[in-house]
């Protein structure tokens, strides 16, 4: 039982991180290979505050998110003005720099040995409520003027500017929201595992999230979430086939990208209204036939 609760909690933390990636990659079309570094900042800052300075958890979480957003703003300033592929390069460099910094600053972070002794505060209900809150907020964002302007900037930057959209500003907003959500996922992660080390926050983690978003459907929030659930839970469930699970994972991703390049869901959003529409649509088709 404990094992499944643990998998579920990890999956929910990944879901939170991926809602952040969705805002960045799905809505705005920016590819970041350094988002995991913001998770690291969230995890280390909140862990340090609670363990070394005795700050209460909630306050530490808020401070950690605020610090991440401030770092994100500095990284974002030059980044949002760049072309897509350069954004990946800059964020990759930034992410690796943060990992290196965590390794070097041994007196504060414990270096490569990791930072331990964090109290276990994240429980399944906390992760669940956080995940639902993030999903709800981001889905509201998607349907607001910000969501629309992000999609417009992704779809055609020149036309977006011509419609009066301040594209760098919109990209910055998307980037900072993504950073805030990802670093919050980092806080939850640290207080769940009670131990963090720099190795897990490298570019591979960031790339994994991007894969999850694409797997589920880059234009669909619910698709991205379901993609995350499948790709996070699957390797755990397949533990018995230890050697083959990476192969299985890779094959699954390749199949989806090959046969459904827009991802599992494409643009479809899972919601009660859409589900009903779909059902009634099918009925009509049948009636017409």
């Amino acid at each position, binding site marked *: 039982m404990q094992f499944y609760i643990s998998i579920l909690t990890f999956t929910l933390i990944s879901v939170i991180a991926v809602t952040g990636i969705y805002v960045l990659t799905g809505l705005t079309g920016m590819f970041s290979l350094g988002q995991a570094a913001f998770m690291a900042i969230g995890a280390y800052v909140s862990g340090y505050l609670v363990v070394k300075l005795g700050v209460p958890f909630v306050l530490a979480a808020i401070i950690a998110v605020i610090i991440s957003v401030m770092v994100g703003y500095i990284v974002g300033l030059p980044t949002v003005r760049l072309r897509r592929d350069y954004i990946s390069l800059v964020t990759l460099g930034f992410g690796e720099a943060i990992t290196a910094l965590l390794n070097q600053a041994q007196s504060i972070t414990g270096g490569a040995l990791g930072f331990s002794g964090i109290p276990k505060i994240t429980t399944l209900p906390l992760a669940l409520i956080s995940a639902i809150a993030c999903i709800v*907020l981001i889905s509201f964002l998607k349907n*607001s*003027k910000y969501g629309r302007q992000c*999609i417009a900037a992704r*779809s055609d930057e020149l036309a*977006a500017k*011509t*419609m009066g959209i301040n594209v760098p500003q919109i990209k910055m907003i998307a980037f900072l929201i993504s950073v805030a959500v990802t670093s919050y996922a980092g806080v939850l992660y640290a207080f769940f595992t009670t131990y963090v080390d720099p190795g897990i926050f490298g570019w591979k983690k960031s790339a994994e999230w991007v894969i999850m978003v694409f797997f589920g459907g880059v234009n669909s929030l619910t698709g991205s979430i379901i993609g995350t659930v499948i790709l996070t839970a699957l390797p755990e469930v397949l533990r018995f086939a230890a050697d083959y699970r990476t192969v299985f994972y890779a094959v699954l991703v390749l199949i989806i990208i090959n046969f459904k390049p827009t991802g599992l869901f494409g*643009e479809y959003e899972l919601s009660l209204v859409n589900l009903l529409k779909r059902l009634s649509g099918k009925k009509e088709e049948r009636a017409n036939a």
Partner: protein
Amino acid sequence: MLEVKNVSKSFGGVKAIQDVSLTANKGDIIGIIGPNGAGKTTLFNVITGVYKADNGNVILDGKEITKMEQHMITREGIGRTFQNIRLFKGLTVLENAMCAFDPLSKYSIFDGLIPTPRRLAEEKRGREICEHYLNVVGMLQHKNERPENLPYGLQRKLEIARALTCHPKVLLLDEPAAGLNPTEVKELTELIGRLCEDIGFAILLIEHRLELVMGISHRIHVLNFGKQIAEGTPDEIKENPDVIKAYLGEGEIKC
């Protein structure tokens, strides 16, 4: 209202436009014609700030807009459509128009995450404005469809509706009739005339279909190899020997 004064723009050694000037007042329809590569679209790109002019000034209502950022130029009151349709994929027809209203929509990022009354009120106001303009171009019934599924003519109209949502003082239309069939061209001509009368802005029109330009323009500027070779009423332009030379070539007239 809009004044373009001696504008030049070069790309490396290519002088795309040289010393072009024009003025457009409220209610004017100004046609811009010329062979391919004459610099017509470059002129539009300089006016809208996609390119910065090397020399010269663009002035809107007495305000210098030459060096401004693209999105600020739009907010000053210049709307445009594109030669190769540039609608936003992934958004419906109504949402495409909403994108042009959104930069002026007054709610903060906090309202963006939670649907507060202020957000709902602003979204409603925006929707009404956009529905009004979709109605003006006659495609309100398509508002929930995806633009990429619509015929070319409707996509062109949506681009016009989207540009109108920016509340332009000057509307730049870049080959709005390209790829349309004769019926659609006729509809479009009527629409442009009607817009100019009802809304009362200035329209700059790039177009290859001479019957359209000659029919509705009040004045016409002719560009060739980046230079302005003629300017005048449609009748003057038809008779202008330089224009005929640019369009038909010279020396073969005897036969």
